[in-house]
């Protein structure tokens, strides 16, 4: 009726020591997109992880070479779409640095507040997705309830919920919404009252702790620092929100932006690490060569290092804490 040995043969790709090679992704519930990991297993224990990239490569860097210094900013929203404000900010800072554009104080304040809000929104999503990777579905919905308040604030002011393109070289595209301060304060109150909820459900939960403690060198620290980072962001916003100065929201810029000849680099701290923009200019209206240093790519490279020797379940925990955004890795 059937031949058992034949089945084993077909299942194979068995390694030399009876290792099992499985493809996690591109379509896998825990990779949050289209990350492709080739995982070598011995039973449940991980021997090796090899990330395969290129599934959603859009050649963004090449694309930017044909866009002007005003236009290329919107593309960066499509890289790390969870911290698009901060990516836009990095690019705008580069142009301002290269051309010595003066940015009004009002724009600076709003930029910081929006960046911190973006950071909180990103971490809310991380919290929900991390809990989901570990098998708890419910915290996702609670985290999204607060994240929704932030996206509503963004929608009011920037007109979009995810890919804002609100920060332009010299300042902001248009002024903030009249309700902006009121809504941000309402969010801060709501967020503070709900933080204990996350602690009860996720960070203080004995199963969550035992799933994350000692898993990879980085993950335990991350689990703590994320929570602190959200509180710090709230503190920064609290300090700024009442003191937004009156005045212009955009500085004086020329109609056509031309970066002087040379090399330029700026960096900003996004929700998941350092984001750098490197531009080589030949003096024209478009960059000659552009390179993004995206945090997700560097974070991914540590995955093999921290996961070897742990279990499949740990891989999900490690991947969750690295907070990978695939379009950021695969530009």
């Amino acid at each position, binding site marked *: 009726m059937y031949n058992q040995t034949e089945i084993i043969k077909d299942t194979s790709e068995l390694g030399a020591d009876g290792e099992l090679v499985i493809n996690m992704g591109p379509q*896998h519930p825990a990779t949050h997109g289209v990350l492709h990991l080739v995982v070598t297993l011995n039973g*449940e224990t991980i021997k090796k992880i090899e990330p395969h990239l290129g599934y959603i490569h859009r050649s963004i860097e090449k694309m930017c070479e044909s866009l002007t210094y005003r236009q290329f900013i919107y593309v960066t929203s499509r890289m790390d779409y969870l911290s698009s404000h901060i990516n836009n900010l990095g690019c705008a800072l580069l142009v301002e640095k290269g051309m010595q554009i003066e940015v009004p104080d009002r724009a600076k304040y709003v930029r910081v507040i929006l960046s911190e809000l973006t950071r909180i929104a990103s971490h809310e999503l991380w919290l929900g997705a991390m809990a989901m990777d570990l*098998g708890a*579905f419910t915290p996702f919905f609670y985290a999204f309830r607060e994240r929704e308040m932030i996206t509503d604030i963004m929608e009011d002011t920037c007109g979009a919920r995810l890919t804002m393109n609100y920060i332009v070289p010299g300042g902001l*595209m248009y002024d903030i919404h009249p309700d902006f301060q009121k809504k941000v304060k309402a969010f801060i109150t709501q967020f503070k009252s709900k933080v204990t909820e996350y602690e009860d459900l996720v960070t203080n939960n004995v*199963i*969550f702790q*035992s799933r994350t403690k000692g898993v990879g060198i980085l993950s335990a620290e991350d689990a703590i620092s994320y929570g602190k980072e959200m509180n710090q962001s709230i503190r920064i916003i609290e300090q700024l929100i009442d003191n937004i100065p009156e005045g212009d929201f955009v500085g004086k810029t020329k109609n056509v932006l031309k970066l002087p000849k040379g090399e330029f680099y700026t960096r900003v701290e996004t929700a998941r690490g350092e984001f750098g923009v490197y531009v080589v200019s030949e003096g024209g209206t478009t960059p000659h060569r552009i390179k993004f240093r995206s945090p997700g790519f560097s974070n991914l490279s540590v995955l093999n290092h921290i996961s070897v020797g742990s*279990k499949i*379940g740990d891989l999900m925990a490690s991947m969750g804490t690295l907070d990978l955004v695939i379009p950021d890795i695969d530009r």
Partner: protein
Amino acid sequence: MFSLEGITTNVQDWLLMKFNPTMALAIECVIVILLSISLFAILGLVLVLMERKVAAHIQIRLGPNRVGPGGMFQTVADTLKLIMKEGLTPDKADKFLFNLAPFVVMMVGMLLLAPIAFAKNFQIWDINIGVLYISSVSSLSVIGILMAGWASNNKYSLLGAMRSGAQIVSYELSAGFAVLTIVVLTGSLQISEIINAQQNGWWIFKGHIPAVIAFVLYIIAVTAETNRAPFDLAEAESELTAGFHTEYSGMRFALFFLAEYINIFIVCAIGATLFFGGWMPLHIGNWEAFNHIMDYIPSSVWFMGKTFFLIFLIMWFRWTFPRLRVDQLLNLEWKYLLPIRNMFLKEYITDVLTGVTSLLKGMRKTGYYFTHSKEIITEQYPDNRATLLMSDRFKGEVVMPHDANNEHTCTGCTACELACPNGTIKVVTKFETSPEGKKKKAIDALVYRLELCTMCNLCIVACPSDAIKMAPNFEHSVFDRTKLTKVLNQPGSKIREGIE
């Protein structure tokens, strides 16, 4: 007073009157089989809906509410869909075992129905070794799962099946010990004897600390045995996609799904029987009047009430806790549920206490949301169109405002076209001759391709005469893609006087 009591004896008497004993027995068997199959179907539909509703309310959602009143027929619709779907068998699978596995899992569920007393004197088979029968038959379900995992010829399935094997075999021990506590207290293995022994108080109240500990052990162990979260390692959606039933589709998947819920019902029914007195009403000491009132509630209602309470408890666990890792799962069983490790008592007690406290805190939170339906934040989109608040700045599409005289302010300067990063806007210009005979550049058509637009707002900023703006429209879906290419200036429109 409605009661199932006596129905069984009446039916048997009638059958014996009409037929000879062998024939009567055969007919009884057929009736029992039909009844249990229909019970399966009904339970599956009810429990799946219940789970979805419980999950939704815990997660501040509404849950299914479209098919039938309050979404009552959602699971019926889902089942119909699954029946009509093609049941795929992977090419290199072991076809015989692959097709057999769901039925093995189902059969175990059916066999376990036999000794359960659904109401007073309403029991298929009151076997005298009832408890032993239950614990031996329930361990057979692992065979079906291993069969499915092995025969699928899929690595995820195999991993899931292996996990499930280790898990079910280990947790059988704790479940067995918990059940034995009640056997010792009662002095009998027979289900009806165990229920009768709880006439003047259920074991959970009467059995003091041993019975309470046994109940906690039992509820943890059966959650693990039925592969439910936080012990759903065999399926582990985020790790193994769907575990042992990754390759199953259509009705065979539905059988696995149904079997999971039947198993939950059965373990909860057994739990209710052992610890909460099965169909036995709540009796308190010598409160004669109270006991008499309690007796008026039908025994089947008592049984179902207790069972569904336990089912709710297990669902509550699932929607609160993260999943354990495979080694932690076995640690929990061998080091905490069966403390045979050489461990200091103090360390053991602190571990258990801190763990349980943190879990209870989480359950209190989810319990709060389950009971407070005003926290639900679901927006029912197509229904709330009238009250939907869209931000006036929302970037939905580019439009060109026209005034009452069908006039716009676009001069055709092509600034928007130059500002656009990806060629969404195309300005077609023409030359108009003014009455004085002067030639003037004007707009013929402003072609806007919505399918390309990234809503970056650069065109709006670039426009020197504020001729275009973003509109908060978002319902753009069309069946014909060409409809997304729009001409923004209205036919017959012209530029307003005085705009240069």
